[in-house]
């Protein structure tokens, strides 16, 4: 017991709070949490909500760096609360604030409507060469490992918004599409199965878009998934320039691998037996 307590430390969390019903603007409030090694910021927030202040609000879901909902500003840097251990960044105090560049709904909860609208705007889905094949597939699209590598890195994005918070263009330009959406546009454009470049072009080639990025590189610095949106955006600039100069290579047709007829399909995994008796 003593040993356990020895490992615990008192850490002060300054949390930026805002209640739309009472406050005109956000203010800082101070909480002290008992932190043991391995505890994440998300754990700290739960501790406060459980023991000190049940009105504290924040967003989270998966608590393992997959869903992207718990992004917040940790001592001035956007991070995932569930993916960051408190003792890794401080042994005294830290500040938590909602992601800037988004409106605050309440406490640490930003309004991410903009993020999702931007994502929708770049048509984030495969637009196949053959509409009929997309609707009623007769087999699988063929893709080489090399073709996969071209976009795989950018497909790890979890739409957390950290990059949009760090981007200096985002901070001043209300209409800028932002690193997340632009990187996703590139992800789909480079997919060998996709033929959507022409219809995305009106969005990614417009103003407040690809060419408003000036490579400050902050998006790639803060991305918790190593997505490197800055790289995707610069590569997309090259595509747009080459396309303008009529030098862009045409994509090769994407083959469909029909289901082989001379083999037998493995039986599906059988449904597991019920653990509770059925009535």
């Amino acid at each position, binding site marked *: 017991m003593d040993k356990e307590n020895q490992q615990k430390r008192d850490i002060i969390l300054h949390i930026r709070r805002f209640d739309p019903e009472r406050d005109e603007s956000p203010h800082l409030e101070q909480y002290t949490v008992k932190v043991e090694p391995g505890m994440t910021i998300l754990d700290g927030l739960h501790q406060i909500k459980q023991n000190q202040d049940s009105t504290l609000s924040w967003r989270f879901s998966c608590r393992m760096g997959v869903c992207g909902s718990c992004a917040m500003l940790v001592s001035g840097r956007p991070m995932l609360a569930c993916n960051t251990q408190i003792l890794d960044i401080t042994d005294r105090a830290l500040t938590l604030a909602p992601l800037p560049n988004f409106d605050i709904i309440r406490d640490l909860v930003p309004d991410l409507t903009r993020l999702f609208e931007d994502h929708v705007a770049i048509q984030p889905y495969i637009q196949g060469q053959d509409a009929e094949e997309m609707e009623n597939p007769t087999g699988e699209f063929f893709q080489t490992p090399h073709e996969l590598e071209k976009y795989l890195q950018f497909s790890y994005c979890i739409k957390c918004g950290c990059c949009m918070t760090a981007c200096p263009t985002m901070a001043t330009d209300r209409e800028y599409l932002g690193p997340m959406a632009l990187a996703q546009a590139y992800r789909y454009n480079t997919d060998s199965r996709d033929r959507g470049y022409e219809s995305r072009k009106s969005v990614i080639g417009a103003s407040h878009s690809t060419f408003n990025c000036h*490579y400050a*590189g902050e998006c790639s610095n803060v991305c918790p998934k190593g997505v490197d949106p800055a790289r995707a955006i610069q590569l997309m600039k090259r595509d747009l320039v080459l396309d303008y100069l009529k030098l862009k290579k045409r994509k090769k047709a994407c083959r469909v691998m029909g289901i082989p007829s001379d083999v037998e399909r493995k039986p599906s995994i059988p449904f597991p037996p019920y653990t509770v008796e059925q009535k």
Partner: protein
Amino acid sequence: MSNNEKMYDNRLGIIGWLGGGRWGIERYLYIIHRLAGVGVLIFFILHIFEGNLRIFGPEIWNPVMKVMEHPVFKVGELFIIIGFAFHALNGIRLILIELGWAVGKAEEPVYPYKSSLNTQRPLMVIMLLLAILLIAAGGFDLMFLGH
């Protein structure tokens, strides 16, 4: 808007644009690039204006040239050299990057993540060294050769 409640506008604006803090070096270069660009542009406008004073004849031209010999303008000139050298060489770096030449290919993200920032860093170092060289040469010329 997803709900009707009052929300707080949390856009960082100009502070977010200028704000350094815990950012990487490319972020600072981004700001200096802009400031240097505006500085050099203002110099060009003033320079054209000053050069055109000639049309008013020697009564105006000569006193203005006298003022220009003041040490303040020497220091100003040094700043122009610094601004110009930095803006030009960093600009070349940005052109190369934005044409997708210095950012490398997509790669599997393995923690601790490396990004295109790491890929372009040798280029950045070379360009900054060249800029320093240019500034030193320009400064030497200005201070000791008096051009």
